[in-house]
């Protein structure tokens, strides 16, 4: 499968200035980091720490990246409040160590991974993806992680495994937004098996070359770039393989507005607003929303023959 979208502009030509600044910061701290790399250690678990040994990937975009500041201060993460600035303000109470992720259900090899073991499960690579929120705004984010199929392969799903369910941490002491009943906690999301196995589906542990900030779903989150942002579950503690289609948090909350698939689709409106266009954060004019968020050539075949108005 040819993933790379050739373009005249090299990724290096569009690197935003904050990345350059981060590089300078990186150079200053190079001694300490080099020592860590030699010992093969993950430098530091804390958000903001540089992730070592990231491979470049072929998943690149010509689109200009969203600034690190915007991507880390304008978030939907209801576990920390429903306002866009709430996650950045409140996510400090989330403890990402110790942290385990349990892989269970219809698998031959169920396992509970320690987060630091999970970070070494597969080589980390950087992938620049579009992110389209169901609310009508979008970003372009350089994620760091590995494909979800790396975990699935090791778990060896049984013939009964048709769907994968993702569960976010449920702890109101660490996640103050969970004291409100705005959603039925814990947050649950799900993918069909073929969607979960798709090479685009990423488990992210970092962004912009750094450990994932808490407000962006630390220590580990899903990134499914052809679906609306809420499908990409954050701060995951459980990955469960199941036979029946999971009932996701948003389907439970408002079944008439949020379906299981939630593929980005400019032709199927949200019942209360249009999905035809989006505002890319940092841009003035709205832009046309792309079918499957621009990943149609890679994912459309999974939905061939399905009525996407019915399976929204």
């Amino acid at each position, binding site marked *: 499968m040819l993933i790379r979208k050739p373009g005249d502009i090299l990724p290096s030509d569009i690197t935003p200035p904050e990345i350059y600044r981060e590089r300078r910061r990186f150079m200053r701290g190079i001694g300490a980091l080099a020592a860590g790399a030699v010992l093969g250690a993950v430098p530091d678990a804390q958000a903001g720490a540089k992730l070592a040994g990231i491979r470049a990937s072929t998943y690149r975009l010509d689109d200009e990246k969203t600034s690190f500041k915007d991507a880390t201060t304008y978030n939907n993460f209801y576990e920390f409040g429903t306002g866009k600035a709430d996650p950045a303000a409140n996510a400090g109470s989330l403890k990402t160590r110790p942290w385990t992720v349990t892989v269970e259900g219809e698998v031959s090899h169920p396992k509970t991974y320690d987060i630091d073991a999970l970070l070494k499960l597969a080589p980390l690579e950087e992938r620049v993806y579009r992110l389209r929120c169901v609310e009508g705004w979008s970003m372009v984010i350089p994620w760091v992680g590995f494909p979800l199929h790396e975990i699935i392969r090791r778990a060896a799903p049984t013939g009964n495994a048709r769907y994968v369910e993702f569960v976010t941490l449920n702890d109101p002491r660490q996640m103050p937004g969970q004291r409100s009943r705005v959603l039925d906690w814990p947050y649950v999301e799900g993918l069909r098996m073929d969607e979960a196995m798709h090479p685009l589906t990423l488990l992210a542990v970092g962004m912009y070359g750094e450990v994932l900030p808490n407000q962006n779903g630390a220590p580990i989150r899903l990134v499914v770039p052809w679906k609306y942002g809420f499908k990409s579950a954050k701060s995951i503690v459980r990955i469960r393989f199941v036979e029946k289609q999971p009932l996701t948090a948003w389907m439970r909350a408002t079944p008439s507005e949020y379906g299981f698939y939630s593929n980005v689709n400019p032709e199927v409106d949200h019942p209360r607003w249009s999905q035809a266009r989006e505002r890319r*954060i940092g841009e003035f004019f709205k832009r046309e929303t792309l079918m499957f968020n621009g990943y149609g050539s890679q994912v459309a075949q999974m939905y061939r023959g399905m009525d996407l108005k019915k399976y929204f």
Partner: protein
Amino acid sequence: MAATLRNPKVWIFGLCLFPLARLIVLGGSGGLGANPIEFITHSTGTWTLIGLMVTLSVTPLRRLTGRAELVRYRRMLGLFTFFYASLHFVTYVWLDQFFDPAAIAKDIIKRPFITIGFAAFVLLIPLAATSTHAMMRRLGRRWQQLHRLVYLVAILGVIHYMWLVKKDLTQPLIYGAVLALLMIMRLPWGVMLLQSVRSRFVPARF
């Protein structure tokens, strides 16, 4: 100068300009966040709702305190509400939709929360247009009947807010509760309550 500063109208006028001044200062210093257009839309919408609530609280406050002169500030509060509603509307037409008549027409017809918000704005226009003393005299009794439309505008405004939020209804419900209270205070029972509170706690003025 001193006489001007003693006039409460001057102070209220200045206070009513605060939301606009805040947007200008934040805009100039990059403080509008990652999605400035959304920030401006929400801010002007919120201040329109607050303006409606403050304007509608003049009459209950007058009954509660017995200060008939409060009604003198009502027109200015109402006109500032219309000012922020206009900014809200212009933000939508200009910054959000960038004067795309087809997109705006489709939005107004297809999106119930836009339909309701647009209706509320249209209904405010005759109220602002008939706010002068000359119009009050010309319309006589009918002026008051016309201006009762503000109750409908406030109800539509709260529904507009309720229908646009994704999930968390806390804020729109707070505005709904305040509006319900202000409406109850206009019912015969509410008027009696306000007057009995006044006679008990507020000394008669001679």
